[in-house]
């Protein structure tokens, strides 16, 4: 279980996270919804160790993750599919996957995992020698997910996987999210697409202006209200 407690992160004097606490239960899909600028990406980058939080703790099981380098955090079993995918554009699809397995030494197992990724994402097999920068947005998203899975994470973090993708591709991505979860991966997902996210999530949080403002299961709040708050913020939704 991934547990975030009272996390504070800031850029200069501006606090982006003002004491965030939440948890992602093992074996489940947890989803974080909120408008632009709520601090969702800051939270993801803090968990991955790219940003250093001011205060608070991030624990995976019994291990404290704050203060560890990004590489050590990957070693602990966390993999982030970043916002905007960030594939390695000048490297082939295959090389991107191998980079995802950078910390692993088991060559045969890595090769088998590459095959598994190709089975799960057949488009990647077709394009394995192609440079990642030349793939379509949807294909790059598949590659980013596959690359993250290559490290065999205990928890998969996904930051806005639907961003900028066509509706059909978004549906495909969420189908894969459910599938991965059914196969046993714990998933913590940040989204703006509340409709899709609520269909797959077991539990969800709402975040506004650096604070968690709601926690519950998808049935607990009418979807309209969730969408209003996720896009527009609570005040206007309430008023």
């Amino acid at each position, binding site marked *: 279980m991934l547990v975030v407690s009272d996390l504070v992160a800031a850029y200069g004097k501006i606090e982006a996270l003002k004491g965030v606490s939440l948890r992602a239960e093992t074996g489940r899909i947890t989803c974080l919804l909120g408008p632009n600028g709520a601090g969702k990406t800051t939270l993801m980058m803090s968990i*991955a*160790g*790219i940003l250093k939080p001011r205060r608070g703790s991030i624990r995976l099981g019994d291990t404290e993750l704050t203060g560890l*380098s*990004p*590489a050590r955090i*990957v*070693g602990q079993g966390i*993999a*982030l599919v*970043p916002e905007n995918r*960030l*594939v*390695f*554009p*000048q*490297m082939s699809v295959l*090389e991107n996957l*191998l*980079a*995802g397995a*950078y*910390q692993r030494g088991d060559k045969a197992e890595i090769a088998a995992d590459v095959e598994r990724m190709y089975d799960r994402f057949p488009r990647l097999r077709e394009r394995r020698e192609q440079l990642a920068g030349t793939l379509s947005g949807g294909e790059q998203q598949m590659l980013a997910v596959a*690359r*993250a899975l*290559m*490290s065999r994470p205990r928890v998969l973090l996904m930051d806005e996987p639907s961003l900028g993708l066509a509706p059909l591709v978004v549906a495909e991505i969420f189908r894969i999210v459910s599938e991965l979860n059914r196969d046993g991966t714990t998933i913590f997902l940040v989204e703006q697409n509340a409709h899709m996210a609520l269909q797959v999530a077991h539990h969800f949080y709402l975040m506004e202006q650096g604070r968690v403002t709601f926690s519950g299961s998808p049935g607990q709040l009418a979807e309209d209200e969730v969408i209003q708050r996720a896009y527009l913020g609570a005040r206007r939704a309430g008023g």
Partner: protein
Amino acid sequence: MIDFVQNTIDGVMIGASYGLLALGFTLIFGVMRRLNLSYGPSIMIGAYLGTLIYVQFSAGPVAVVVMTVLGAVLAGIYVERLCFAPMAASAGIASMVSSFAIWMQLEQAAILILPRHTYPFPPLATGAPLELGPFLLRIDHLMMLACALLLSAGVQYVIYRSRFGLALRAIIGNPVAAHLVGIDVKTSVMLAFAGASAVGGIAGYLVLAIDQQVTPMFGMWATMKGLIAMMIGGLGSIPGAILGGLVLGVVEAHSLWHFGPQVRDLVAYLLLFACLVLRPSGILGDAPAAETSIGRRSA
């Protein structure tokens, strides 16, 4: 005609040393996307330490090579820690100016180690030159050419076939994503810097062993020749570095023969200037990348 061919041969041989210098240079640029002006002076520190043990303790050639490479690597790491690691990647100019500041430090440090203007450097091979019909081929020149080709092939292999090379290319492609897949970016960058300095150290050793002497001008000379060859060949390209070096060497050899040393240097800079204005990406470089700016409050 005979002169023309002999000049071209000599140019290729000298060009091999320029190519080797450019190889380390371009490697640092490729990974950092920033220019390290201290590259030559770092090599000079290695060369001076090598000379020191040769002059003081009459060390053998192997010890001199090891000392030269080791010194260059240590000086290179010093530069990386001081001028590159503490600054944001966007602060390319701050790093470049800072590396120049360290250039002055290293040069003065070298002069403090060995204050005379000229010191002897142990030769590489003293045998008579090979005769090929009317043409002469110096053995040490051939060794340098072989080293240039072997080392560039080796570097190419490491970058495109090894796990370390995969990490470096990932860092070049997207540093944040490199962190996210678990690459230790800081250490990898430092190792790349050290490796590039080692290549520079080997280049420096070969050049000095052929000249058989070392002077305080060597640092600037190495930076300048490496820079010109690298830019002509295409910034960040490994085969481009060697090719750029060979082109520079051949052009220099012919202009030296016809017009003397001052015009030779003039032609070298003219070549660089024309290349930048007409084709900034060089012979083999990729599209002009590396937009650099002054480090705007990005400490």
